[in-house]
């Protein structure tokens, strides 16, 4: 009897937890989400922001309403992307943001966009979870006269958006390749045998980075021993690297991880296989994303070079909206500025398609400033 009571208690505790969970995630799709977000992020400055809101209301009449259908919150990168949008589209900057976290559910994302149309917002920002199936809903946006700005990932089956803002993943791959070529020349590495731990198969970041790196590898006649997916996760990177260490024992001298998390996993696996890596090791470790933790590992002489994928799309989208507001036509493809990081010893001059690249040396300040 006692135990039965206990189980009931447990059940009710869980139920309360669930309700809280549901509440948390569902209210982000409601109209008040923007207000909730604001109050959550800036509760201390509530008064101040209220004042500014009054100012904005009187000075330029109305706030620009923006809806943002975000993919989810699966990584540090994504969180930084969300935060960037929330920072830029604040009331202080003359915006009102409706933010919807779609939790990697493409149906939910379509719903979110439709609800933005119903609310008759001024602009809609979409980070598309999938690249297809957008034509119908984008046509609806067009008919409603709402400009759509696509960020980060791409839409393949429709061109009914005014601009796309994001990273050029292929350039990132090319940068990694060109850097490796220059680095190998400087260090006197004559033969390159690389293993690649790629991202989630079919993700645009995976396709672009693989394509770019492969292009240089083909040109230079490098030997790519294997390419397996680590699904952009640390565990995935660890497992794939464990197997590389056994399949290609002593055969590889370059490891390319398509994001930092995979690199963390690959490092653990190489530690456990007694393989030395980094600027002073036997293996050159290349990573992408360059999040704070990644740069810390560059500073710790573990990752040889890290190629950034800038998540801070907010300011660039802001630029596009300002252009439209002032009656201009924005460029259809806006590429964000990205940095290539390494320690001074691994900084070499290289070019992409004849364009000289500048590398950023990793210092404490740089790490501090990174997302």
């Amino acid at each position: 009897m006692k135990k039965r009571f206990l189980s009931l208690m447990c059940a009710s505790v869980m139920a309360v937890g669930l309700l809280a969970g549901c509440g948390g995630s569902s209210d982000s799709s409601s109209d008040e989400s923007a207000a909730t977000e604001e109050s959550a992020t800036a509760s201390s400055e509530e008064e101040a922001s209220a004042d500014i809101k009054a100012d904005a209301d009187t000075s330029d009449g109305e706030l620009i309403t923006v809806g943002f259908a975000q993919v989810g919150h699966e990584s540090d990168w994504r969180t930084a992307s969300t935060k960037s949008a929330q920072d830029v589209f604040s009331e202080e900057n003359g915006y009102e943001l409706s933010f919807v976290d779609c939790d990697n559910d493409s149906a939910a994302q379509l719903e979110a966009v439709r609800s933005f149309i119903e609310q008759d917002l001024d602009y809609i920002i979409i980070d598309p979870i999938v690249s297809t199936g957008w034509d119908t809903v984008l046509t609806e946006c067009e008919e409603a006269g709402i400009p759509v700005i696509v960020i980060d990932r791409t839409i393949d089956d429709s061109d009914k958006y005014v601009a796309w803002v994001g990273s050029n993943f292929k350039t990132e791959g090319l940068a990694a390749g060109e850097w490796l070529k220059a680095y190998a020349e400087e260090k006197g590495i004559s033969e390159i045998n690389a293993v690649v731990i790629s991202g989630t198969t079919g993700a645009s970041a995976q396709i672009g980075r693989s394509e770019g790196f492969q292009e240089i590898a083909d040109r230079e006649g490098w030997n790519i021993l294997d390419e397996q997916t680590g699904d952009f996760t640390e565990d995935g990177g660890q497992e794939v690297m464990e197997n590389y260490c056994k399949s290609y024992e002593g055969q590889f001298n370059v490891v390319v991880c398509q994001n930092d998390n995979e690199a963390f996993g690959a490092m653990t696996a190489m530690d456990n296989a007694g393989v030395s890596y980094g600027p002073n090791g036997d293996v050159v470790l290349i990573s992408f994303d360059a999040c704070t933790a990644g740069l810390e590992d560059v500073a710790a002489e573990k990752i040889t070079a890290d190629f950034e994928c800038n998540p801070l799309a907010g300011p660039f989208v802001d630029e596009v909206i300002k252009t439209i507001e002032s009656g201009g036509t924005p460029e259809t493809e806006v590429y964000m500025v990205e940095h290539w990081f390494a320690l001074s010893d691994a900084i070499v001059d290289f070019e992409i398609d004849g364009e000289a690249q500048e590398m950023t040396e990793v210092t404490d300040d740089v790490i501090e400033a990174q997302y």
Partner: protein
Amino acid sequence: MNKNNTSIWTRIRSSALFLPFVCLVLVMAVNIIYDTMNGSNPLTFFIITLRDTTGNGTILYGRIIDILNRGSEAALLALGMTLVVSSSAGTDISVGSVMSVCASFCCMLLAGYGVSSTNDFNVPLVVGILAALILGCVCGAFNGFLVAFLKIQPMVATLILYSAARAVGLLMCNDLIVYIRNDAYGFLGGFCGILPTPIIITAICIVILTLVLKKTALGMYIQSVGINDKASRIAGLNSKMIIWATYVLCGLFAAIAGVVASSRITSADSNNIGLYMELDAILAVALGGNSLGGGKFNLAGSVIGAYTIQAITTTLYNLGVSSAQAPVFKAIIVIIIVAIQAPPVKAFMRKRAAQKQTVREGARA
């Protein structure tokens, strides 16, 4: 002498573990063929050596160790899943999410809420781990309550936590990956002496559970409830409590698996820890020759099933099958294994064996 041999062989062959074990061996045997064809030592896949590491001393190193190590989570989940399947004739599809929520809870306690990276513990490590295990039991108790007392179908009942637990985990971690960069936390997913700790943890769990099931009547109770719930109740068993208990155990094992998975990467990646693991756990139970219809169960079979799944993965890596195509090969292998163990196929094989026997006897006559 000869007769005695035959009887041992027959006994082995008729053992419930025979087919699952043969399947595991067959999967690994593929590597012998591959390595021979490649001109390397045929036994490359099976060789275990001692290896000096950076930071972990000397460890055992080899593919077999990898299979045992990487298969740990699936094996742990399979233990709980076997009991749940047996007692309630249904599956607990929430185990993957429960792994995630427990790992998140543990890391949240250790790091403190809202902290995304830490080197020091906020609370003692043991407290964090125990709390995670308790949360696992609570999740299991919740599932068990719905199934045993409210008579909700297991899949529907566990669907709730399947979708909600991961989200709760994300809330606990403030939507971030929480990194615990501390060697002590990495121990559970790292090495204990020369062996990977997950292998030891799994072995301990298997031994304890087996002892409990064998030395007490619990194992028999679970089977009898699974075979006939009403009859067991009339015979004096508290069927509801027994079903409930299996779900609590399942939650506990999910929590252990979650903590191990999180310790491997010394972080709580709530989006990815235990993702799709419930499917592996269910598959492990099926590959182990257990009926998903409940009743009699074979714990060792499920464990072998779990390692078979990992052996397939590791084999595909060894063969260098690209990860894009790997699922297809995996599916084919799984279909073959399941088909071999399907009752009609088994019956057919028995019939053929009997025919052969008659023919042989006829010839002798």
